[in-house]
């Protein structure tokens, strides 16, 4: 394992060392110590390496992640794993707003709470939150899934496309075009598998499913005369 200390090595050097692993992975395990809310830690990784971050991460930690497995042993600031393509990102503490924003693929696990706009414009990644999520989560989310083991804030899934949302606790309010949907066996199997992959011990049967009513983004034939 290679250890890099943010108190003695610059963030730029650390990220550069991690980026160099994309052409030739010489070191599979990395430990970054001394994180004190620095922004952009372990951004833009493109290698099947594992990176453990000790301390709290600032904004955009593990953004644009591809293939790498990143664990934050603390809290993460806004935009953790934003635009992730693949790989996994795990936050042991809490995450601020816009966690997993626009993420295309991969798995983001937040063991604590996530702030507002979790999974905003989600494009295919899977997000599992151990605690609560804030307001406007999954706003305009297009694909992928959000699992909330606690409660969801206001306007959950507003203007939702095809992202699947599962919430165990209460939902303060549903956003426009987001409705509760039947939990089919197929959904249960998917949720069971996702919770297993996230390492979260919850009973899938205790969740409710929410999805798009599909009335906002489909063309309404009633409007045809307008064209």
């Amino acid at each position: 394992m290679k250890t890099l200390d943010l108190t003695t090595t610059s963030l730029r050097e650390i990220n550069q060392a991690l980026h160099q692993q994309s052409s030739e992975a010489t070191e599979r395990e990395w430990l970054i110590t001394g994180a004190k809310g620095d922004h952009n830690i372990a951004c833009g990784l493109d290698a099947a390496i594992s990176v453990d971050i000790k301390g709290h991460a600032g904004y955009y930690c593990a953004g644009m992640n591809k293939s790498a497995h990143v664990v934050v042993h603390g809290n993460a600031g806004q935009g953790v794993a934003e635009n992730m393509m693949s790989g996994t990102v795990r936050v042991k503490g809490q995450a601020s707003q816009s966690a997993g924003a626009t993420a295309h693929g991969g798995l983001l696990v937040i063991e604590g709470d996530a702030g507002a706009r979790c999974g905003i414009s989600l494009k295919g990644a899977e997000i599992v939150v151990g605690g609560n999520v804030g307001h406007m989560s999954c706003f305009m989310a297009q694909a992928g899934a959000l699992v909330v083991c606690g409660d969801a804030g206001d306007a959950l899934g507003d203007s939702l496309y095809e992202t699947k949302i599962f919430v165990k606790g209460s939902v303060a309010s549903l956003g426009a075009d987001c409705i509760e949907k039947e939990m089919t066996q197929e959904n249960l199997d998917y949720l069971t598998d996702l919770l297993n992959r996230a390492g979260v011990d919850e009973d899938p049967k205790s969740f409710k499913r929410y999805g798009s009513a599909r009335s906002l983004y489909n063309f309404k034939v009633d409007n045809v005369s307008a064209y």
Partner: protein
Amino acid sequence: MCGIVGLYLKNPALESQLGELFEPMLIAMTDRGPDSAGFAIYGDEVEDGTKLTLRHEDENYDWEALAESARAELNAEVSFFQNATVAVFKMHCSAETATAYVEEKAPEVLILSAGHSIEILKEVGLPEDIAANFNLKGMKGTHIVGHTRMATESAVTMAGSHPFSTGEDLCLVHNGSLSNPNWVRTELERHGIKFETENDSEVAAGYLMHRLREGDSLNEALNNAMTDLDGFFTFAIGTRDGFAVTRDPIACKPAVLAETEDYVAMASEYQALTTLPGIEDAKVWEPEAAKIYVWERS
């Protein structure tokens, strides 16, 4: 973009270190606000009388002459100490009498704050330089709120920097931008609130001042702000006994809170909290949208 920091001590043993604990918090927010910085510190209470923070750009301004004439004309005890461009006056009279006297006799002097406990100090420049200029490190007190400014819509001037006084012992720091400041300013001017700048945060401060004068409690005033102020804001409000933190209902602008047995701290970003003692084990969380958090000595 701007940075906000606040520190409220629960443990009186730390009061002698308030400035020392707070200075690195303010400096840590330089990236968010390198234009100007300021802080409102509470302590050194004047029980029977008024404390004014006065400012004149000339460090050689004759404060003694102003004190001397106030003593004679108000027939009241007046003492003061100077700190760079600012002088803190302690006057044995009401706040109304004290401010009216200074406004009339020394119109060239700006009144930054009035109350029993508050002192507002602010300038244009890097937070590090401003902290050194006012010797923040050596200051004692019970609580303090500060601001580092990156101006977006109005000029980089001392008058446009934060904190803004919102009444006796009250002040506001703001991160964000309002969308309806001109309309609100016009309304407030009708109610007699005066404005020094084109700054939207000054409008927010004026709004709170107006609501409090109308009889709102701090909680009510902030709740009304949620309706009447349109735009983005994270506010930290200093009061005589503590501070309050709130975010607009959309909560775009960041805020993080930390609490231990010794203190409650708030900052725009966690980076500003890392130098506090025991932060590793503090309860750290993000304040919810449209919720008002208040810590005050009972």
